[in-house]
């Protein structure tokens, strides 16, 4: 029997070791119903997915012939979405119900549930096909399992990243594991190198020994910027993008909002300097032009969720430009769209969030903040203007020590602040009445991705029964799902951890010590149980309503 894991519902807390098939664990039943409904509505999608599945099957069939003997007598039940399987049997090893899998599907599945596997009779022909498919699926899973057994991943714990792979592979909209969390897979690296070569972008090489748990992530050194390998008057990449990439990698532009604004600013310049080559359409060519720039920025520093959403928006706007539109008009339209996006999603959202938050700040409050979140700083400054009486405790952590900047901004406005390091948080929490946290992204299962250390603060705050409020604009909502900080994270330059005290630099030669690895994590995820309220521009919502917001957003668009 396959043991499921991955997206375990937090309340149940069963960290079963994940083997290969990580599954979202949702039972087939509810899914099937959804699927069939969708199949009815979107016949096109169904066939696309079928086609994809057929392609996969052809590939796997070749392999399955070799691996038939190794097939373990296990079956998994992955449900393959579209075609609801009529096979009820492999159902329920999982008793865990969890949130829906990384879904590109905004439709939230009705949660838990018992296996009502009766194959919904809606689609008769589909059903018979479905049965065949179910068998094929079973075969595929078996041999996938055996393949991964071969790779020796059995019994390894926390190979969550890897477990995600097969699971995501079986999702209806076939999602492959993103490249940026497969830094230890030589095939992926080769593919990435080829892609970058095609786009004429230099490949940034990893630096230093990585801690084994995070060896699937890239780790770069700030002293080896990507511009070393670029020509100096950069012709392949627009100078504004080169400048932006440098500013990202040096940390001059840091923070989710700042990065998105800077990105959109650079895109504005790119659009202004763009001219459609003959025989090309602006709507298609400009998107192709932007792809290498995005790869370049990704190499300089992995893209944030907010940047990803902004890019999606821009690409959509560009492709929606009607072909009869003249170039100048199209360009000015795009520039306008960018400005509107920034205005709505960042500036006005900040105002709205400030308005809601101020309701939650009462006189005499002691507010704890962590690191330097532009939104939280904005809220506090607004609250001061509305004449609320409060004081702030700024918690800071190495190596970034961003709290100093937050401290400076608040003190400059006249807010009375206390400054502590994160190790003193349990000491100071009894004084605190509220905790305001900023977020880098809000994931679809309600987890909050933020600067490393945030989850600790939320945990301790929960232990002290202090309300934790997370402030996040809706454009940072992301459809990804994560339950731990290992799978998808960012590794910063390990040399940042080296510090010189009293003339001595102990870690200077850390690379010579074979058993030493320096880890400089950037993000971590906070489970929704620790977060009491999320304040967004749409209002104050509980953490678990994030999928609803995502669905509403996608419907709007």
């Amino acid at each position, binding site marked *: 029997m396959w043991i499921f894991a991955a997206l375990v519902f937090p309340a149940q807390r069963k960290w079963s070791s994940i083997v290969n098939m990580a599954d979202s664990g949702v039972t087939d039943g509810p899914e099937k119903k959804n699927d069939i409904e969708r199949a009815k509505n979107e016949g096109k999608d169904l066939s696309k997915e079928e086609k994809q599945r057929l392609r996969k099957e052809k590939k796997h069939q070749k392999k399955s012939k070799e691996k038939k003997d190794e097939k373990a007598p296990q079956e998994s039940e992955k449900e393959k979405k579209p075609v609801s399987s009529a096979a009820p049997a492999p159902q329920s090893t999982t008793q865990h119900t969890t949130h829906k899998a990384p879904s590109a599907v905004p439709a939230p599945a009705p949660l838990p549930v018992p296996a009502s596997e009766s194959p919904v009779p809606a689609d008769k022909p589909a059903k018979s096909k479905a049965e065949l498919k179910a068998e094929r699926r079973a075969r595929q899973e078996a041999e996938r399992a055996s393949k991964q057994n071969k790779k020796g991943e059995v019994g390894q714990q926390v190979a969550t990243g890897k477990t995600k792979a097969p699971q995501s592979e079986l999702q209806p909209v076939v999602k492959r594991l993103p490249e940026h969390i497969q830094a230890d897979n030589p095939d992926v690296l080769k593919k990435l190198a080829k892609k970058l070569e095609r786009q004429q972008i230099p490949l940034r090489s990893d630096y230093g020994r990585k801690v084994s748990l995070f060896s699937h992530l890239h780790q770069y050194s700030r002293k080896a910027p990507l511009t*070393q390998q670029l020509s100096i008057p950069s012709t392949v990449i627009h100078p504004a993008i080169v400048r932006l990439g440098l500013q990202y990698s040096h940390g001059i*532009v840091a923070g989710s909002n700042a990065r998105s604004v800077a990105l959109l600013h650079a895109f504005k310049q790119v659009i202004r300097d763009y001219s459609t080559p003959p025989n090309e359409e602006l709507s298609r060519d400009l998107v192709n032009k932007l792809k290498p720039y995005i790869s370049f920025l990704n190499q300089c520093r992995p893209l944030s969720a907010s940047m990803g959403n902004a890019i999606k928006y821009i690409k959509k706007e560009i492709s929606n430009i009607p072909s009869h539109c003249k170039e100048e008009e199209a360009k000015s339209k795009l520039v306008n769209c960018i400005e509107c996006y920034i205005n709505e999603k*960042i500036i006005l959202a900040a105002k709205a969030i400030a308005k809601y938050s101020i309701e939650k700040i009462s006189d005499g409050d002691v507010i704890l903040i962590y690191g330097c979140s*532009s939104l939280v700083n904005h809220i506090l400054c607004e609250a001061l203007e509305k004449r609320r009486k409060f004081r702030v405790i700024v918690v800071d952590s190495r190596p970034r020590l*961003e709290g100093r900047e937050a401290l400076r901004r608040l003190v400059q406005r006249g807010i009375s602040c206390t400054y502590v390091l994160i190790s003193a948080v349990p000491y100071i929490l009894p004084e605190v009445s509220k905790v305001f946290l900023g977020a880098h992204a809000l994931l679809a299962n309600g987890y909050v991705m933020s600067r490393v250390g945030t989850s600790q603060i939320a945990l301790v705050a929960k232990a002290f029964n202090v309300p934790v409020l997370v402030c996040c604009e809706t454009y940072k909502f992301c459809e990804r799902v994560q339950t731990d900080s290992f799978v998808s994270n960012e590794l910063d330059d390990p040399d940042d951890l080296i510090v010189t005290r009293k003339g001595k630099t102990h870690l200077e030669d850390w690379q010579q010590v074979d058993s030493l690895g320096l880890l400089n994590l950037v993000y971590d995820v906070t489970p929704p149980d620790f977060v009491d309220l999320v304040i967004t521009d749409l209002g104050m919502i509980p953490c678990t309503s994030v999928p609803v917001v995502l669905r509403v957003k996608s419907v709007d668009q």
Partner: protein
Amino acid sequence: MELQAVLMAAGGGSRMTDLTYSTPKPMLPVGNKPLMWYPLNLLERVGFEEVIVITTKDVQKMMSTDTKIKHDVKMKLDVVCIQEDGDMGTADALRYIQQKIKTDLLVISCDLITDVALHEVVDLFRAHNATLAMLMSKVHEFTETVPGQKGKKKTAEQRDFVGVDQSGKRLLFMANEADLEDGLSIRKSIMRKHPRMHIKTGLVDAHLYCLKKAVVDFLTENKSISSIRGELVPYLVRKQFSKSTTSQKQEDTEDQNQTKNDESTNHELLVSSRDDPLLQLAQERSCWNDHRGDMSEAYHGGKLRCYVHIMDQGLCYRVNTLAAYIEANRLAPKLFEEPVVHPSAVISERCQMGSDSIIGALCQVADKTSIKRSTIGNSTAIKEKVKVTNSIIMHGVTIEEGCNIQGSVICSNAVIGRGADLKYCLVGNGQRIEPEAERTNEVIVGADQLMEI
């Protein structure tokens, strides 16, 4: 386009007139390549495709005949000729080509030989949106004896005082000893913003500058500035901390009215780009600051920023004195992996040649000669039993039998008679040394040159 390269090759070489009175400085052979080939090669390696070369007519003529430049340099050279009388400073030259300048500039001098990673300088320029980014290097002491120098090297070299901030990148202060009468005075505004400043004196300016286009526009308005190094750079460094550029926000509206009053501040205001509000927003939301300890925002709110990259390893020479020229000849060949002996040179078998010598094209070296640590130019004929040590022999020289040349510089087309013994001499262009002459530590140049003071 991001950057335009401008090569300043109109300099006269006023500090080594003995060498330059017949060959213009940009075409002096260093390691058998013309001096200006080195910066051109640097630009080409980095990826430039076009260079604007500002030079004189003589140099342009010589460039068109020089094989190295014609064949090896693949970039497009846009040669702009200016008058040779020497009144035009480097800033004047920029003003002269103002029409050609469409974007930010990289100004490089023809006498720079370096293997710097140019991206270090340009990255400072890009990342911090700087107005000026320049390159400096630690001074290397010249150890070779310079021909014609009587007595010790003059130590009265005017020192440059360069003040940088704690990170070593931001340029805070720059002054030459000549301009400081009774001591170094630093403005309070600088000390308030950067309480910790490192002042360095042992640096040589490489004359490699990245300038924003706004600076060129500023130069066209301000005709009083004529030299980049002497006037423009100190001016920009000072202007970083002047009140007008730091209090941008209030001034922006007011200055709309008083445009013509203060030309200089008006043009520095143009440092801001048209998308400034968005950049400002990004900077505000970013949690980065370039300094800490006071209440001001990143860069102290200043729009004008000057940065410097100080090289501590690697080659960086400015060939503007005889000593530098000799040193450069010694080390420049190490920059490139080229065969020491040119394929077309005819070297007899009984010649002893050290591995650190270079023989140019079409040379003829006869038997029983010994060439150590020397550079022999193109088309030079060296007869038998000649000993050449530690010397630089330029093109077209004839050295008759039995000569002993040590530590000397022999310019083009000179003829050294048989049996001559030259130690630490500089033989000018086209000179003839009579046979059996014995010269030590002398500069032998023609009579016509002596008049040119």
